[in-house]
């Protein structure tokens, strides 16, 4: 299900569903296209997260955008609040429960099903041209029950990044493409005093970036087709975790990030002692390795070749008071031109056809952009994020040699039963 071909088919299918949904759903609902921008009144609060690492830059981007929006919609008052990534689901759920929820929120796909009942689908608020302009995989990522629930604004492809300096030091000229390559190369790196990989195993790290890519590469998945049960304890799951176990036991993995998350600059990875990693985008390592040493590679292959890539999107919560105003704001922000500016400023990949390639020739983002077709957005399941909470500690138990892979995954699957609703 994770190959490129299936992906494209899926997207095409959802595009068809989407088209029919639009036809049927537009009826009585308020459509911003009809009302005059100048007449629209209300206030909109949006929560976003540190999508741009530099807070001041991020802030001023939104201040500028709000000003530009204000010229078109003088009656709408917009506030953008930047929340920390950490515990963001908690903050949002708490706010929803406490009736102090924002009107618009930045979501990634695996969050959407969990909040589906709190979200007002964005579909009717976007005009057809805007919808048609979206890349198919972006649309697929935010489509639930045939409707676009949120409006994509950015994408990423988190493939494999390797440190050229380390490869030069070891005298290795080829970069790993498969799991077997990793296994074969690792001893030489170890002998030269380097780690083959870094694995970010802290429980607060999302598994989308760490274990799930391996699981998908082994041909497995987190949930079964209809989402009634977890399947990470399949043979594929065991194979994926066994690879990690082997690498750890061979001392090919930097141990400082194995169960904890030290600040990046303190890690072996940042200090240039690690050959490759797949849990972070290459652009985040440039600062430490230098652009010339940061090599962006295609995702690793075992049974499948696949990596994680996100689609960031803006959704309107159903508790929003001024839905038309919120819809207009989302439509404005996700307009092709705005999106291009935002993507370029934040170093993310575009989600609109008309933008084309933003980073042609760029050794980092230009490379990452090539592999977007090989990415998946992670499990779209209501309990996706809760499941991570029970799975992550069990993976740690294997990494520190306390459990065998099958045992750990079975235990996690057992614990998952109380989470699945």
């Amino acid at each position, binding site marked *: 299900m994770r190959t490129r071909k299936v992906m494209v088919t899926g997207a095409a299918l959802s595009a068809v569903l989407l088209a029919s949904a639009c036809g049927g759903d537009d009826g009585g609902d308020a459509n911003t296209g009809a009302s005059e921008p100048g007449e629209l009144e209300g206030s909109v609060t949006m929560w976003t997260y*540190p999508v741009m690492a530099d807070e001041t830059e991020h802030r001023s981007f939104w201040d500028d955008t709000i000003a530009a929006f204000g010229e078109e919609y003088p009656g709408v008052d917009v506030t953008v609040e930047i929340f920390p990534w950490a515990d963001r689901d908690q903050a949002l759920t*708490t706010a929803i429960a406490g009736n102090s929820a924002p009107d618009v929120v930045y979501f990634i796909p695996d969050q959407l099903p969990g909040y589906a009942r709190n979200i007002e689908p964005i579909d009717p608020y976007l005009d057809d041209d805007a919808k048609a302009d979206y890349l198919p995989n972006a649309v697929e990522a935010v489509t639930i029950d045939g409707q676009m629930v949120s409006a994509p604004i950015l994408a990423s492809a988190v493939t494999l990044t390797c440190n050229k300096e380390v490869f030069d030091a070891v005298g290795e000229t080829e970069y790993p493409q498969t799991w077997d390559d990793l296994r074969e190369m690792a001893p030489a790196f170890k002998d030269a005093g380097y780690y083959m990989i870094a694995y970010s195993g802290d429980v607060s790290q999302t598994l989308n970036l760490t274990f799930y890519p391996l699981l998908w590469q082994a041909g497995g998945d987190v949930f079964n087709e209809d989402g009634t049960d977890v399947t990470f304890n399949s043979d594929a799951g065991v194979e994926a975790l066994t690879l990690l176990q082997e690498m750890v036991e061979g001392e090919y993995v930097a141990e400082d990030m194995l169960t904890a998350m030290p*600040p990046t600059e303190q890690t072996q990875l*940042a200090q240039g002692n690690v050959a490759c990693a797949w849990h972070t985008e290459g652009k985040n390592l440039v600062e430490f390795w230098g652009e010339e040493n940061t090599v962006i590679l295609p995702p690793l292959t075992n049974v499948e070749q696949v990596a994680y890539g996100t689609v960031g999107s803006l959704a309107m919560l159903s508790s929003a008071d001024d839905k038309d105003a919120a819809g207009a704001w989302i439509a404005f922000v996700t307009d092709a031109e705005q999106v291009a500016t935002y993507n370029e400023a934040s170093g993310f990949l575009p989600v609109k056809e008309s933008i084309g390639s933003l980073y042609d020739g760029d050794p980092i983002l230009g490379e990452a952009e090539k592999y977007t077709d090989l990415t998946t957005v992670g499990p779209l399941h209501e309990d996706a994020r809760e499941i991570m909470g029970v799975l992550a500690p069990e993976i740690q138990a294997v990494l520190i040699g306390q459990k065998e892979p099958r045992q750990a995954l079975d235990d996690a699957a057992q614990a998952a039963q109380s989470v699945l609703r």
Partner: protein
Amino acid sequence: MTRIADTTTSAPAENSNGARPRRNTRPYRALEPGRPARIGRGVLLFLAAIVTLFPFYAMVVLALKPVGPIILPDSLVPWGLSLEAFERVMGARTLLRWTFNTLIYSVVSVVGVLFFSSLAGYAFAKKRFPGKEVMFWSFIAMLMVPYHITIVPVFILISNAGGVNTHWGMILPTLANAQAVFLMRQFIKSLPDELFEAATVDGCSEWRMYVSIVVPLIKPILATLGVFVFLWHWNDFLWPLIVGQSNDMRTLTTGLASMNAENVPLNVVLAGSVVAFVPIFMAYLVGQRYFKEGVTMSGIKG
């Protein structure tokens, strides 16, 4: 919202009202340690002081180093300093906001707790009214109930009242402080009745009597209790973490914890820690006596 500490069995603490009779005033040299013992004591204390102070030293020195990898032992030497980490942490507008939130949370709570608990403590100590004993002891029983049991219902209450991510929502529940009521009542009870009754006979209104007689008399306990409540709020973590989730409503402790989880460089997080620590440290230097009395009296980690 008081962490449990049962002081009803009288904490054997340094007392705030009146000095204990000191028996150890007469010098008797033989009880003093000899020279080798003195040297041993000096060495032990010196080592213990180093171990105690090392985390503070590390925090300050690392905060003053250029942002980057920390390599031992070079990173611990007190030269090659730079203000980069401080510039970065102060550059983010949030730190000032967090400091402001912490101040609001601490100061308003201190004023509220002192005011309400002194009113109640005065009534419990010097007034007679039906249901007094039952009421007082049910207040005191709350000392037995750990703060963590009530945190869920209190959160549900505050959340339904729209108090999540507001200052009042954060402060209000912490004003119900059983410890403070108990200590106030004990203190006021120890004051002679005549002081109050003279005023009653003079025809003082109750309110004026509270303001002009009671408040001046309880100044010592106001200071100690105030310092303790302040310290407790300044360092409080779990409740602000739950009720102040937005970036704008974080306090210094929850903000720094989020920074720590956000992959901010260590030097910068430590610079933030220094900013959070300095005010309380300065206050400690000035009012050490009150800190020690406040904390020991209440038996609680601030």
